[in-house]
Structure formats: C-alpha cells, structure tokens
C-alpha cells in the first residue's frame, strides 16, 4: 500500500580506497552526507560483533593479581572474529537454554601455567588454548619487527617461582555497546575534505618574509613556498585541521581574503584502525551490513499499519459526522 510511490531520493555514494593493510584502512567517501558517514563510524565502533572472553572459571590462582583482575585482562584480549557475524548471541541461542555454553554460541579456552624456575614466567595470550582453531588470540607477529628470536603475545600476568595459574574461560559473541572489549575498532575517524583557494593576486603583494611568516602561521604543514618562483603552494590540504590560524594571520597582516577554505560537505576521508579481531576492510563491510539490519528492524510492522488504517476510518467518521 505505502512505501512505494513518490520520487526516489536515493543517493549513489562513491568510494575510493587509498591505503589498505590488515589492520588499517584509509578511504574517501563521496556523494553522501555526514549523517551516513557518522552512522557508519558509530556502527563500526559499537555495533559490529566480535568474540571476546566473557566468563572465567579460575581453578588455581597463586599469582600476584586477583581473580577478577585476571578475568578482566582476559576479556580485553582480541580474538580472531571472522566467524562472529554468523555466530549466535548466547542470549538468543536456543541450543543451550541461555546458559551460553554450547558450540553455536561459545568457544572454550584453557590456560595452564606454572613457574618452576627462578626466572619470571610471562603468561601471555599465546598460552590460551582454544577449542576452536578459527577463534584464537590475535597474532601480531608480522606487524612487529621479526628480528627478535621469540614472538610474544599479550602479557596477562607474570609468575615467580612456585606460582601457578589454571583456568577455563568461555568466549562469546558481543558488541561494543555492551562492553568495549567487544569493539573491533581501535579508532575510526572521518574528516571533511578541505577545499583551499589561495588568492594569487593578493599573495603577490606580499614580500618573501611576509609569505614565509604566513606559511609558518599554520600549525600543520599545509602550505609551502616554491624556492624558485617564490610562489605559495598548497602542499597538503588534508593536513589542515580547521584551526583557522592562517585566516587570522592574513587578517592580522591586513590582507583578509588571502585564502578561502571550505569543508566539502559531501566528501569524507575515513581512517579505520582495527584491533585485529577482524580485518579493517571487513569491518567496513560488516558495518554496512549491521546498519542495513538495523534499518530493516525499524520498518513499520503490518499490525501498526492496520491499526492506523482503522484509526483513519474512525477519524474520518468523527470529522464527517
């Protein structure tokens, strides 16, 4: 009945990827507005699911850290979560009546470590033994310089002679809104693309020293001077932080309008850094999917529409009679 009809106001955004690594992505998003860009950012941080340790049963702990301290540290260890999108949340898993310990909604980990020597033993994320080879602590070894003989994981606790740690942990699917340990994003930012116009005629009325001092008034290196032609150039527009220092400087020099800077309102530069739980590029795709699911969930239900149709007739009677 409704929903169809009327002109479409759909947009067709354009994407350009600039740089991509497993845990880093930089891309341009054009042809949409800040609300969509911000929704994507918010979803990436708080609503893309990952897997993290959520329940810890400690068998033996004679380390210097108390049980809950260790449980908290374990929760923060990023786990590879490519499976998370298709996994079930424990709370709506019907295979295990909500106790959240079945293969569909959880992954079990074991950790056993005891220090037998006089040297301190580092218990790291590498000591966590997973029951599922697809869900393991994130390995950062290729990101680090691999000249060191031994690759270390994330330190959980240090043990001295005679101390022991033995535990069982359950990892579950969750989202960053629930607890930050489930957030797959280290940082996600976007900025408006700046558009910088230098008034060439006005610049030419400046002496070289004046040009120099104006160029240096910017806290970030946005402008430079060509040593041969003594022309002022925009070397890196994206270094501009919208601080307006160069505009104030131009005014102070008695040359207002020396430069005009606009933020292009439909053009964004995104930087995505992942914790390693999922690849940065996959994080963006998952965010789009999650946002689509959210939109689908807020569609009007059939009974709401029917109830209103009746109301409409009733209203017509009231108005007519």
């Amino acid at each position, binding site marked *: 009945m409704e929903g169809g009809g009327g002109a479409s106001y759909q947009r067709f955004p354009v994407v350009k990827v600039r740089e991509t690594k497993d845990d880093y992505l930089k891309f341009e998003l054009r042809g949409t507005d800040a609300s969509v860009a911000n929704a994507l950012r918010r979803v990436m941080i708080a609503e893309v699911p990952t897997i993290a340790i959520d329940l810890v049963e400690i068998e033996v702990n004679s380390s210097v850290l108390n049980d809950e301290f260790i449980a908290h540290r374990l929760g923060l260890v990023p786990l590879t979560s490519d499976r998370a999108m298709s996994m079930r949340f424990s709370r709506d898993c019907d295979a295990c009546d909500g106790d959240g310990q079945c293969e569909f909604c959880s992954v079990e980990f074991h950790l056993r470590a005891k220090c037998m020597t006089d040297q301190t033993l580092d218990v790291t994320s590498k000591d966590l033994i997973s029951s599922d080879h697809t869900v393991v602590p994130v390995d950062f070894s290729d990101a680090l310089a691999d000249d060191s003989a031994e690759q270390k994981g994330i330190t959980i606790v240090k043990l001295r002679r005679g101390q022991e740690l033995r535990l069982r942990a359950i990892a579950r699917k969750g989202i960053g809104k629930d607890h930050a340990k489930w957030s797959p994003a280290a940082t996600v930012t976007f900025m408006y693309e700046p558009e910088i116009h230098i008034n060439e005629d006005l610049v030419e009325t400046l002496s070289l020293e004046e040009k120099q001092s104006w160029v240096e008034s910017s806290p970030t290196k946005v402008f430079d001077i060509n040593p041969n032609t003594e022309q002022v150039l925009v070397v890196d527009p994206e270094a501009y932080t919208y601080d307006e220092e160069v505009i104030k400087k131009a005014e102070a020099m008695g040359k207002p309008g020396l430069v005009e800077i606009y933020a292009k309102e439909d053009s964004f530069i995104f930087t995505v850094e992942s914790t390693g739980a999922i690849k940065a590029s996959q994080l963006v795709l998952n965010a789009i999917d999650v946002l689509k699911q959210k*939109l689908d969930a807020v569609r009007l239900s059939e009974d709401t529409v029917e109830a209103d149709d009746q109301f409409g007739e009733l209203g017509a009677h009231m108005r007519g009679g």
Partner: protein
Amino acid sequence: MNAPDRYERFVVPEGTKKVSYERDTKIINAASFTIEREDHTIGNILRMQLHRDDNVLFAGYKLPHPLQYKIIVRVHTTSQSSPMQAYNQAINDLDKELDHLRNAFETEMAKHSRDY
C-alpha cells in the same frame, strides 16, 4: 548493586513493539514514531533522509533521556504524502544507498588487492 543490565540498552523487552506510531491529534499529516532501543545512529540518518523528501515539511528526532533507550522521530508532510509513506520511503532509500555503497566498496577493494 541496582545497576540495570547492560543488555537493556539494545534488547527490546518482550511484549514491547520496536516501532510504534502515533498520529498528531491536532495537525493533519503529522505523526511521531517511537523507536525502541535505537539512538543517534538511526535517528540522525532517518532525519536527514526525510529532509531530502520534498513532501516533508518537518522531520526531527530526539533522544528524550540518556537512560531511556528510545528515540522519537516526528514527521509532518504535505497532503501529497503521509508520515508513514515518507518514513517508509526514507528507509527504502537508505537501504538502497547502503546496497550501492557495499557494492562500490567491494569493487574498490577488489581493484586494490589486484593492483598491489
């Protein structure tokens, strides 16, 4: 001790509707949509998409209280449309935009992995 459960922020309680619709009693073609367990993420994109519709005279959203996990979207349209029609259209258009975005992103990533 008496802190509410964290999941209350995003799990719709049983027996509660995700979206409820209420017509304005005084103004024709004006209505409020109350969306449970949603925030600025959905509120703002819906509002901005509704603004693109020529038949929408007013569209706004509010998060009444940070501890009440719901938003209220208010829409007023011309007689050519209705709040329900505008709301559905906005969701459909956003959905199609995200489909397009997903495809654009995937082709761009494929191009990148081939080049390098």
